[in-house]
């Protein structure tokens, strides 16, 4: 992939994070009913209207979390790749492969978390 197109992918995933991350923060922070901190309202393990589990049970919101996971992983690890290339002065295939492996593990592990929370009865 040409570096120019990688940069466009970086911007596209950044804008995707703006969308999905906005939804993520909205469901966490802005729905708390001003009755207490989010430790007392959102972060409760039950079916309160604003608690965290219904967010994962909702298919659309779970899909948006998946989109956030994938786009943030691409954006973050591409950013780290760019910074490392700037620091050592050139691209290094082993650094890029290592970053790719860590990113792939994060996507798999995060998808597992989302699926379990989605299907928990």
């Amino acid at each position, binding site marked *: 992939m040409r570096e120019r197109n990688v*940069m466009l992918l970086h911007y596209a995933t950044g804008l995707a994070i703006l969308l999905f991350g906005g939804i993520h923060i909205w469901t966490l922070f802005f729905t708390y009913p001003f009755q207490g901190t989010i430790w007392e309202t959102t972060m409760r393990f039950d079916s309160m209207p604003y608690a965290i589990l219904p967010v994962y049970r909702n298919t659309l919101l779970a899909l948006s979390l998946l989109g956030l996971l994938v786009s943030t992983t691409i954006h973050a690890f591409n950013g780290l790749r760019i910074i490392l290339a700037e620091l050592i002065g050139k691209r290094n295939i082993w*650094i890029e492969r290592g970053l790719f492996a860590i990113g792939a593990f994060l996507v798999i592990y995060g998808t597992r978390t989302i699926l379990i*929370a989605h299907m*928990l009865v």
Partner: protein
Amino acid sequence: MSQRVRWSTALQNLKTMLIPGKYGLERWSYTLQRVSGVVVSLYFIAHVLETGSFVGGVTVWAIPDYDFAERAYREAVSFLKNPIFDAGLAVIGLLVVFHTINGVRLVLAHFGLVLGSPRRREILETPASFSNRQRALFWLSISLAIFAMLYTLDALMGVFRP
């Protein structure tokens, strides 16, 4: 091209990257964008691992029963709910919002959208890539970031509640 990494050069480049010096606000924005990006990336990795422990950790790969999940959830919450992590999250909120707005500014600059029309420049003039509108966006990112930090502190610790 050899694949050997010269670590001494990398260390010197790191020093250059982290110290903006006298090169102006745009250079500060470059450094802050990289530092906030790296810190938020490390937070993102920690966040994926930590939310994994909310459903029982790395050993659970099937749907656990409700009681087990509830116990794992309460353990994770009791681990996370302390003032140090709350303050850390407020810093993350600051960095994320700065990185977002400054990143939008960079995307706009990449496509030449808020740079103004081209004209002849004099020597030692402020660079064309950092126009007044670009500057305004930079300071907007700083102020929104500070607001996000205060909001996060309020949402997590209730510091602005009567």
